[in-house]
């Protein structure tokens, strides 16, 4: 079995800091694979190494069977990247951006027009192709970059935080386009995200990355079922934790500020009892576990949703400046 991406003890250090710590991954062809983790977990550094933008400190990786250090040109030709920050030229039209990409990535002359038309159709931008990118919305620009990444027929696509900063409706659209690409274009997609809902919705498998290491790796549903019960979320000032922790059906207790998260087997049957023991409660919510709960379960922390990790280049600039 040939993997689309295979890493072997992949490590990146910046002085004392270990950004990626002995990563072993095997990503199958045709899957949507998510690297999920909080800011600074090492997702973007991993992506940069796989895209041959950064050299690993130690360890190896193969993308489409090519070694990322020894065969970086072959790797580059066989992958497509959508950066976190806009990287299309906003003075040029959508079509011109695609034309330049076709030239730089060696798309044969007789295929160019046809490929450009094809990828424009995939992301529904045919009608706006001759408009200057400055006039595009954020979502359209992301779609153009998605199309551009696909132009040279890559077998693996890397999407770095593909829906960061987009509104909910646009995010939903981007997800649909990505799902569609995997079906029709036969590519493997690797995304980094710190959005739980994105990983849950889009990915076949998810690796939860924390401190440069894999904390958990499985399908979203398997990860969620490992939590083993439902989640009860309570707003409470001074919980009686002792009384709760003794109960055999309470699987885990996590407190942050005035929020208490309990993982409970068969929660609805036990809710009455818990509420009786725990003290005065502001509000209660019972739900099935999300990837957020999985993350909390594995790392003991909640993932923060407010801001994204720096883009590939900011990270590189940072690393250079820091040396």
């Amino acid at each position: 079995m040939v993997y689309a991406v295979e890493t072997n003890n992949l490590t990146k250090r910046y002085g004392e800091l270990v950004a990626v710590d002995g990563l072993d991954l095997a990503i199958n062809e045709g899957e949507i694979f998510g690297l999920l983790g909080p800011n600074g977990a090492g997702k973007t550094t991993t992506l940069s190494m796989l895209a041959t933008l950064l050299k690993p400190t130690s360890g190896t990786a193969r993308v489409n069977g090519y070694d990322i250090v020894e065969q970086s040109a072959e790797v580059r030709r066989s992958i497509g990247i959508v950066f976190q920050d806009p990287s299309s030229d906003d003075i040029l039209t959508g079509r011109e951006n695609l034309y330049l990409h076709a030239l730089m990535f060696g798309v044969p002359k007789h295929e160019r027009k046809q490929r450009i038309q094809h990828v424009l159709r995939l992301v529904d931008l045919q009608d706006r192709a001759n408009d200057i990118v400055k006039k595009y919305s954020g979502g359209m620009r992301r779609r153009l970059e998605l199309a551009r990444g696909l132009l040279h027929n890559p077998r693996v696509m890397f999407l770095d935080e593909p829906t960061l900063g987009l509104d909910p409706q646009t995010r939903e659209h981007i997800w649909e386009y990505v799902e569609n690409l995997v079906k029709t274009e036969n590519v493997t997609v690797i995304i980094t995200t710190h959005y739980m809902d994105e990983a849950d919705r889009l990915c076949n498998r998810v690796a939860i990355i924390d401190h440069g290491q894999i904390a958990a790796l499985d399908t979203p549903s398997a990860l969620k079922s490992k939590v083993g019960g439902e989640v009860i979320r309570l707003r409470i000032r001074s919980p009686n934790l002792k009384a709760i922790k003794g109960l055999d059906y309470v699987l885990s207790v996590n407190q942050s500020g005035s929020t208490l998260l309990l993982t409970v087997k068969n929660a609805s049957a036990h809710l009455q009892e818990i509420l009786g023991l725990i003290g005065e409660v502001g509000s209660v919510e019972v739900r099935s576990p999300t990837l957020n709960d999985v993350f909390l379960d594995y790392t003991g922390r909640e993932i923060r949703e407010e801001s994204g990790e720096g883009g590939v280049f900011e990270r590189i600039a940072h690393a250079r400046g820091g040396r």
Partner: protein
Amino acid sequence: MGELEGLYALWYRELKVFSREKSRIVSSLFTPLLWIIVFGGGLGSAVSLGGINYQVFIFPGILAMTILFSSVFFGLYIVWDKKIDFFKEVLVAPLSRTTIFAGKMLGGSIDALIQGCAMLLFGLVLGVRYTALNLFFSFIFMFLLASAMVSLGLIIGSNMGSVEGFQLIVSFLVFPMFFFSGALFPIKDLPSWLFAFTIVDPVTYAVDGIRGTLLGASTMPITTNLFLLLGFAAVMIGVGTWSFARLK
């Protein structure tokens, strides 16, 4: 083949950007025209040098200035490109860094040459006589100056982390290169301290070369100017290529 097409792509991009930012062309020609019309015209009504009206005398200098400024700025602009924009896309392309540098350098040089041509047209108003030969040599000087200065800008820009150093470079590098070049005065019989600055300023050789070509009034032989400028351009291109190879 792939590298050549990449080179073409980079150049095509610069040309498109240039053609769509017409306001940039107009504003880049405005200051040089002020120099010639107001400064040259004002002083020219009283001064002539070696039988050449002052306004005409500084024309080659201002032509070189136009190219100097637009070339260095073009190169420095890469600081922006590195942060946002199209450049990320270019860096992940399967192209050698030499090609990327060459594409940027040629793109910027041709931009600067187009501005130089607009200035040459204005020379007609001043009564500068063009022949095929003197235009040909002017283009060579202009191109050498442009490629050297775009490279210099790219070298500084690719090693600079932020745009904050911009003003510093303009004040302490670009303006001195213009003022010491003899664009505004003859470099014969200068006080020795000033002469020392003038002969280390590469722009001097472009100004003197173009002045010799167009007006027949150079201080040094044209071939001396040509080879010194060629040497400087070659060094800048070499260092620039090396800088790009290191660029992440």
